[in-house]
Every structure is written in structure tokens, then in C-alpha cells.
């Protein structure tokens, strides 16, 4: 019997063919399953192959208020080869999107390629463009960073570029934390406190016709920055600056000779080193000769003052004498220990390094004691001042939510810190900072008035006036710093533009406004400097 007529062989052949067909079919099904479940599960791609950028996480303030968010927008591309009338299409698209018509006409003229018409179109603009009926248009889904607070917080938060990458401020400093994160990132900033700080700083600029102002509110135990303002500011939702806008963050990017506010550190050093008694009298007869240099006080303070009143009345002459008991050999390492001689490290990338003399001798020690000859940015100053009043431990300022107290390096003893708090209170009760007092909140602080250096000399009428306040003084929780650049005296200040007449009252108003927001309870007791 031949194979062709053998029924068994015929059946085996048919079964083999059926098995082969089944195997091929199952292989195709398996391949498709792999394609759908594994290969197709990757990131979405657009029809044009242009990758959709990864979304940045939201930034929120410490109470959950929105600070920055990526909003869905569309980028519009066009294929000019499909246009009958390129000039007409350019005109229509320019009107609908706000793009530059001449640029579009020039780009469409060769009738080839794939041209970016406009970025960041809103859903309404997209709808309008769809109704134009133009062929060859393609919308690519994208994101645009939106800052609901506008100018408020502009310097601290910074900006992103057109590709949604951080280019300044916390947007740049927190770039790694913001990418690939689903949850919003909570900052230490408080929108309400920020507004109060900015509002009072703006009022001070207006009232004293100052060039600029800046302020900081910081928790002295946790190092959290609750608010940071720098005026003039800018609108981060726009891509261009107005004529009076400034992108410079004066609290971190600029360094200043801060003047008498620096006496805090000279006295902290003296108290820690026990080189003075607080009731010890010092001659403050003006001028005080130091080598070839003469040191003056702002006003005549009498033939002599006790050390505590040298601080309260802010005598340069007395402070220089006190500093010289320690000398430059001890002053320099002490300031270094406070972090005043090295760049501050925070999440903000824009941080200016301090400037100080290479040759640090007796004269330099005397002038640095009252805040001339050394330039630091205000945030660096605030961090050091916080260490003085918080019990004596160094803190690192942070813009991230961090409610636990920092366990920093001990800089000074708790006893020295307590004495310094009493001295700061004395400034407000009987010294140059009386206008900063806020009943119920026991403010302590120090005034500063520095002449700006210009062309190698000091300009007497161009001042940096500042006040650093802490409250409540018996157990300080918060530090409020305010600085005015070139303020002018007014009727209210008696014509003076000093820190005690300009910045101090503004800090008092800020504390009165923000203390309830900060959870600091008002007390009806009155804390004197010598309780």
C-alpha cells in the first residue's frame, strides 16, 4: 500500500499540518500579548515622536497653599508645505497665538520643515486655532509653570525655562526633588507671613523713599525660613522684566557692610570670653583715635557709658575698645565659627560669599566690630544672629519644611546667649531700637546703619539701614530682619534715616502682624531687660 492511499499516514500528515497552524497562531497571539503588556506599557509618545516633558511636582507652602504648579498647555507646530497661503496662515496664527507674525512669515516662506509656532497655549487658544481650519497643524501636550502668588515669593521660588527646567531660586535648587515626584513638595515658607513682610517692606520703601528693601523671617531653632522678601521684585509668570523690576535677591545674592547690627557678634564674643563686665564704664569721647584712623559715633553719647549702654546706644567707639580686648586673633576664628566668613549652604543656589580683609589687624578688628570692613549677605547674618539667641547652637537655614529643632554645633554657652538676649531687649527698651517694641511680644533686637562704600570712600548720605528683631526675648522663637537701601528721613522719623528710625518701626509692625500667624501668644506681662 502506498503512502498516498494509507489512511493512517494521511491522518498523521493532516494532524501535523493542523498542529503547525496552531503553533503559528499561538506564537502570534503570544507575540501580541508581549507587545501589548510589556512593550506597549512604556511612556506615551506623541504622533510626531516629540517626547512630552516630565511634569514637575507642585510646590506648596507650609500650610498647603499652592506656590507653583505645572499647568497643562499645548505647543503648536506647523507644516508650512500644507499651506496654500503661507502669509495668510502666518497672520491668522499670529493673531490667535500672539506669536511674532514676521517670524512666522519668514519661517513659513520656504514651505518646508516643521515649525514651532508658539509654546504654552491655553485650552481656549487651542480651541480658537482649531476653528481656523488650517491644515498641517499639530498640538504637542506640554506644561507651563504657573505661580499663583505672582510677585510674592518670586525671588525665593525662582523660575523655570521654556523647557520646564529650573533656572533660578528654589526651582533650580530643588530640581532633583521636583522631578519624578508625585506628591507636592512642602516648603517652610508661609504665604501669609510672606505677604505681611513684603507689604511692610514696600510701605517702608514708599515712606522713606528707599531704593530697595529686603526682609527675612526665620525660626531660630529649626532654621526654617518662613518668609524672604527682596524688593524690587518681578512677575515670574511673565518672561520679561518691567522697567523697575529686579531679579536680584538682595537677601542672598548681594553682600553688604551691615553696620552696627554686627555689634551683636562683638558683644557675644566679649561676653563669651568674659573680657567685659556689663556695668563696666567705657570712654566714648569722640573721636577715638586708632593709629592713623579716627572712629566717630553717630551722636555724642557722653564722656563714658557702661558696656551694656554702649550696645544699647550703639557706640562705635565703645564697641571698638571692647573688641580690641579680644583682638583680631580671637575675632576672626569666632566669626568663622558663626559661619560669617564662608558661603552659606541652603537650597537657594544664589548665595554670595562674604567679603573680608585679607590682612586682619587691629584696625580691621575695630571696624569689623561695628560692621564696617566686612560684607555678608543678610541671610548669612540672620543665621549667625539666630545662633546667638537660640541658646548658642548653629543652625542651617532651610526652605524645606523641617519642624524639628536642629541639633547644631554649640557656638557659645547658654549663659552667653541669655545675656545677649537681655542686651538685645535693652536696645528696644532703652536704646536705639525703641520703635520696634510691640507690647505683649517682648521684642529684642539691634539697629544697624551703615554708610555705603562708593569710589573707595564712605558716602555719608547713602545708608544701609537695618533692624534685626527677635521675639519673645525670654525664649526667642523667631527672628525678623529688615533692611532698607538708601532710605531718606521723613517727618515721622525726625529727618533721620537710621535703622532705629526706619527699619525698626517696620519690624515692629511686621511682628505685630505675623506673631498671631506664627502661633506666638501675646502676653500681658512686660519683660524688662533685667527681669
Amino acid at each position: 500500500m502506498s503512502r498516498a492511499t494509507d489512511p493512517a499516514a494521511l491522518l498523521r500528515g493532516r494532524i501535523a499540518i493542523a498542529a503547525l497552524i496552531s503553533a503559528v497562531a499561538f506564537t502570534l497571539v503570544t507575540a501580541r500579548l508581549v507587545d501589548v503588556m510589556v512593550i506597549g506599557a512604556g511612556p506615551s509618545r506623541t504622533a510626531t515622536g516629540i517626547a512630552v516633558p516630565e511634569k514637575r511636582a507642585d510646590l506648596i507652602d507650609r500650610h498647603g497653599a499652592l506656590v507653583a504648579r505645572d499647568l497643562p498647555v499645548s505647543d503648536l507646530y506647523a507644516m508650512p508645505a500644507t499651506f496654500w497661503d503661507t502669509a495668510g496662515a502666518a497672520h491668522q496664527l499670529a493673531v490667535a497665538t500672539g506669536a511674532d507674525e514676521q517670524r512666522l512669515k519668514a519661517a513659513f516662506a520656504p514651505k518646508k520643515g516643521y515649525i514651532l509656532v508658539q509654546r504654552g497655549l491655553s485650552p481656549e487658544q487651542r480651541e480658537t486655532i482649531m476653528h481656523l481650519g488650517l491644515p498641517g497643524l499639530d498640538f504637542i501636550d506640554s506644561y507651563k509653570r504657573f505661580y499663583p502668588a505672582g510677585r510674592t515669593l518670586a525671588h525665593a521660588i525662582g523660575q523655570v525655562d521654556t523647557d520646564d527646567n529650573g533656572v533660578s531660586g528654589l526651582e533650580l535648587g530643588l530640581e532633583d526633588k521636583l522631578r519624578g515626584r508625585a506628591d507636592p513638595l512642602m516648603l517652610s515658607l508661609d504665604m501669609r507671613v510672606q505677604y505681611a513682610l513684603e507689604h511692610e517692606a514696600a510701605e517702608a520703601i514708599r515712606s522713606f523713599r528707599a531704593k530697595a528693601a529686603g526682609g527675612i523671617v526665620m525660626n531660630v531653632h529649626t532654621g526654617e525660613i518662613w518668609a524672604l522678601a527682596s524688593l524690587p521684585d518681578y512677575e515670574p509668570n511673565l518672561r520679561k522684566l518691567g522697567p523697575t523690576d529686579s531679579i536680584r535677591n538682595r537677601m542672598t545674592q548681594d553682600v553688604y557692610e551691615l553696620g552696627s547690627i554686627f555689634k551683636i557678634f562683638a558683644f557675644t564674643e566679649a561676653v563669651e570670653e568674659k573680657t567685659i563686665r556689663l556695668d563696666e564704664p567705657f570712654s566714648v569721647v569722640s573721636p577715638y583715635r586708632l593709629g592713623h584712623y579716627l572712629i566717630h559715633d553717630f551722636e555724642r553719647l557722653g564722656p563714658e557709658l557702661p558696656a551694656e549702654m554702649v550696645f544699647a546706644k550703639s557706640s562705635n567707639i565703645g564697641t571698638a575698645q571692647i573688641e580690641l580686648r579680644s583682638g583680631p586673633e580671637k575675632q576672626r576664628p569666632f566669626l568663622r565659627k558663626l559661619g560669617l566668613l564662608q558661603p552659606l549652604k541652603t537650597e537657594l543656589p544664589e548665595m554670595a560669599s562674604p567679603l573680608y580683609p585679607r590682612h586682619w589687624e587691629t584696625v580691621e578688628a575695630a571696624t569689623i566690630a561695628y560692621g564696617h570692613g566686612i560684607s555678608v549677605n543678610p541671610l548669612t547674618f540672620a543665621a549667625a544672629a539666630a545662633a546667638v539667641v537660640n541658646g548658642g547652637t548653629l543652625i542651617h537655614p532651610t526652605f524645606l519644611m523641617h519642624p524639628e529643632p536642629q541639633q547644631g554645633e554649640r557656638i557659645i554657652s547658654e549663659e552667653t546667649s541669655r545675656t545677649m538676649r537681655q542686651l538685645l531687649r535693652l536696645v528696644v527698651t532703652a536704646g536705639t531700637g525703641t520703635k520696634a517694641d510691640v507690647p505683649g511680644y517682648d521684642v529684642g533686637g539691634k539697629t544697624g546703619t551703615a554708610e555705603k562704600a562708593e569710589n573707595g570712600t564712605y558716602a555719608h548720605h547713602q545708608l544701609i539701614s537695618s533692624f534685626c528683631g527677635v521675639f519673645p526675648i525670654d525664649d526667642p522663637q523667631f527672628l525678623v530682619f529688615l533692611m532698607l537701601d538708601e532710605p531718606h528721613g521723613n517727618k515721622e522719623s525726625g529727618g533721620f534715616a537710621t535703622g532705629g528710625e526706619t527699619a525698626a518701626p517696620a519690624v515692629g509692625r511686621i511682628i505685630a502682624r505675623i506673631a498671631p500667624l506664627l502661633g506666638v501668644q501675646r502676653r500681658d506681662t512686660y519683660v524688662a531687660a533685667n527681669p
Partner: protein
Amino acid sequence: MIRILNFTLVLATGLISLGVYRVAEEARISGIELRETRAAIAQENKSMAVLGAEWARQTQPARIQALAERYLNVTDRPAAQLASVSQLPPKFGPQPENAIRNANAVVPESGNSSLAATQSQAQSAAPARTLLHTGT
């Protein structure tokens, strides 16, 4: 016999194919509905993101203050926190009788703010000299 078996199997295969086709079609339709639903959810999420941002813009302190001054005739007056939530008695459990009995309030005099009134009271109660080491 083998023919009957083959016929039965072919018939079963046909029926199963019809069944599979029906399931596949239902799955395809469900897939379309799922995609539409997901797109709708994504659209809603986008709308919520936009609305959340708009809400944040509308509730900015600067805007609220401007509206309050314009329509409510209120000025920017400092508030005073007289107590905190932690000092409130617990809702359940024993009530702190003493704390309630000792509670009091200072009513500001007319024409003065409570802060100003308290300031005058506080300063009158303060020692005459406020300097460190009263020998100065």
C-alpha cells in the same frame, strides 16, 4: 466514528471561535470605553489642576486684603492671639474647673486698641529702670 468526531470538533471550534470573537469584541468596546474614561479622568484632573491654581491666585493675601479694604471697610489691623487651641479644655473627659473659673478678659478702653491699652497697662506695671545691672 472519526468523521463524527471531526465534525463535532469542527463545530465546537466554530462555536468557540464565535464565542471568542464576541468576547474579543466586548473587550475591544470595553477598551475603548476605558480609554475614554481615562481620558475623561485625565481631563478632569487637568481641569482640577487649573481650577486649583486659579483658586490659589484668587485667594492670595494681597487680593483678599484689597477686597476687604474695598468692600468691607476694614483696615489692616494687627490681630492678637490670646490663647491657643492646645489650651482649650478637652471635649470629652473631666473639665478643668480651675482654668475655667480663672479665665478673664481685658476689655480695651474706648478709642484705644486692645494693644495700646495693654501697652499702657504693661508699661505702668514695669519697673522704672529697665537697664541691666541697675548701677548704670
